[in-house]
């Protein structure tokens, strides 16, 4: 033992502290950094490709006729998708009227009234599960519940199917926004002798409003772009809607129907309708961002 200690002379080699550009570590770093930049740029390409196609192909046919006229039949020229714009707006409106109040009330229960109860825990979990549900299942569900019962495809059924999709999104987003309201503010309200409803109406909702609105608007934007749930609930119609209890056109179904047609006129209209739909959805997105920015100061 002692021999070894004696024989090992203290040979300490100090490493150079200079940067060595041929070092394998350095090379790996550069390579990975280029990779990750490449990934980020490549991932942005589809968005720019989609948007430029929409502007070039869709923009070419956007005119007053396209926005107001009804869809053309087979070999017809011209036409438009005015009825589909109205249909989309009406059905998204119906869905909002159902899902927003319901979702916000449910969120109040989850965030403020009884956050740790069994009902809240299960409900929160199922809402998350529901956001990952295939949207077509909402359509099939509403087909079974409304279309078969009433005997007709309708704007009602389409709106309800969209509401099923919006409900969990609105609920979870609103819950998140309400949780952002500082506990101190809620304490202050409770400390003054507010009932739970008064705490909510006077403090939580006004303070959390920007966040809640952001979530709601994003949910509306998502619903506007949905098509699978409308396939067998609202179906489609070539005419302007006269009542809510009849098959109704929507932009997304029009794009789906026209995309596979062997007619240039219809394909052009599908691009224009896509442009309108994307502009609608992006407007909602921008609105949501603007509203979200006006968050309360702490």
């Amino acid at each position, binding site marked *: 033992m002692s021999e070894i200690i004696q024989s090992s002379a203290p040979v300490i080699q100090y490493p150079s502290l200079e940067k060595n550009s041929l070092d394998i570590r350095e090379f790996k*770093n550069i390579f990975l950094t280029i990779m990750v*930049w490449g990934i980020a740029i490549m*991932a942005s390409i589809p*968005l720019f490709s989609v948007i430029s196609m929409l502007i070039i192909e869709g923009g070419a046919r956007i005119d007053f006729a396209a926005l107001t006229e009804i869809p053309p039949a087979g070999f017809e020229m011209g036409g438009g998708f005015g009825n589909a714009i109205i249909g989309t707006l009406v059905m998204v409106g119906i869905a909002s009227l159902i899902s927003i109040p319901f979702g916000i009330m449910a969120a109040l229960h989850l965030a403020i009234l009884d956050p740790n109860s069994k009902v809240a825990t*299960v409900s929160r979990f199922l809402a998350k599960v*529901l956001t990952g549900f295939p949207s077509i*299942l909402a359509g099939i569900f509403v087909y079974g519940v409304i279309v078969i019962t009433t005997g007709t495809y309708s704007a009602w059924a389409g709106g309800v199917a969209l509401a099923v999709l919006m409900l969990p999104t609105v609920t979870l987003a609103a819950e998140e926004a309400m949780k952002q309201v500082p506990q101190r503010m809620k304490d202050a309200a409770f400390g003054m002798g507010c009932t739970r*409803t*008064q705490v909510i109406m006077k403090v939580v909702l006004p303070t959390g409003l920007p966040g809640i609105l952001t979530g709601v608007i994003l949910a509306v934007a998502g619903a506007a772009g949905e098509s699978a749930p409308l396939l067998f609930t609202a179906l489609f119609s070539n005419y302007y809607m006269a009542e809510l209890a009849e098959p109704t056109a929507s932009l997304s179904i029009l794009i*789906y129907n026209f995309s596979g047609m062997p007619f240039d006129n219809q394909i052009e209209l599908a691009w224009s309708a896509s442009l309108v739909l994307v502009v609608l959805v992006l407007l909602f997105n921008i609105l949501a961002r603007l509203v979200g920015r006006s968050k309360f100061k702490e």
Partner: protein
Amino acid sequence: MVHDPFKQASSARTLSAPPSANDYMKDIVFRAFAYFCASAIILLVVYIVFEIGSEALPAIKTHGLGFITGTTWDANKGEFGVLPEIWGTLYSALIALVIGGVFGVGIAIFLTQSFVHAKLELVFRTTIELLAAIPSVVYGLWGIYVLIPLLRPGALWLHETFDWVPLFSTELSGPGLAPAALVLAIMILPTVAAISVDAFKRIPYRVKEAAYGMGATKWEVILKVMLPTASSGILAGLVLGFGRALGETMALAMLIGNVNNISFSLFSPANTLASLLASTFPEAGDIEVQALMYAALVLLVITFIVNVAGLAIQQYTMRKFEGKK
């Protein structure tokens, strides 16, 4: 009446008063309604499962488990099997997961590990978020008229040069698995990226500091410390992204070709459960609708399992960093 034993006894000058009977009424009604709405979400899920299940019941009785292993879908013969659709659903989602996963995690690293100036980072972040905002049908349209023509020369070359590789064993003659899976990858990328970004941001700064303090390079910190620490969160993102891919309907119905076919080839047409529903339902007769309901139930079960798994992993991750709650 409102129970207030204090008013008389307390100091005469106080302006305190109990809530009015009206306030109490409002409170009770309001809370009951909120409770009802929260329960309604539970009831809704139960109702969806029950409704689809009961509509599918006749088909379950007729076809039994043979429905899942059968490979023919022929309404005229009354023969229904969804094995090709299950195959197509899982296969397309898996390819999408591999591509979308690599890109999603790469972007999460790019956005959280200070590669770019904050302003440019915001640009990229917004781009990825907007990727999620584009409606499915628009991706479908883009896939038909941009992606498929773009892929065809490359696919042709791969097929001619490597036709002994199962992946390239057929030609891409139009719609097929490759364009469908690519579009799926684009669509799940924002989900994977968002959840992974979240997982990275949850890591306390001191962990990174400790790694740098030991003389690790930026990439050593990322690969050996940050990535393993965020791994369970990233896994949750991948599983939830996979769940999204399984249920995606419109873009697939437009791009995959809707042919009942079990093949490894990336360029052959295929079918998925969701696109089977979308393309067949509108013209289906009663018997076929029942079979479609059965297919919907299969889709429901698969996505339910995948989503619950993803959420469970996500909650496990949150607890890991926030302490038990």
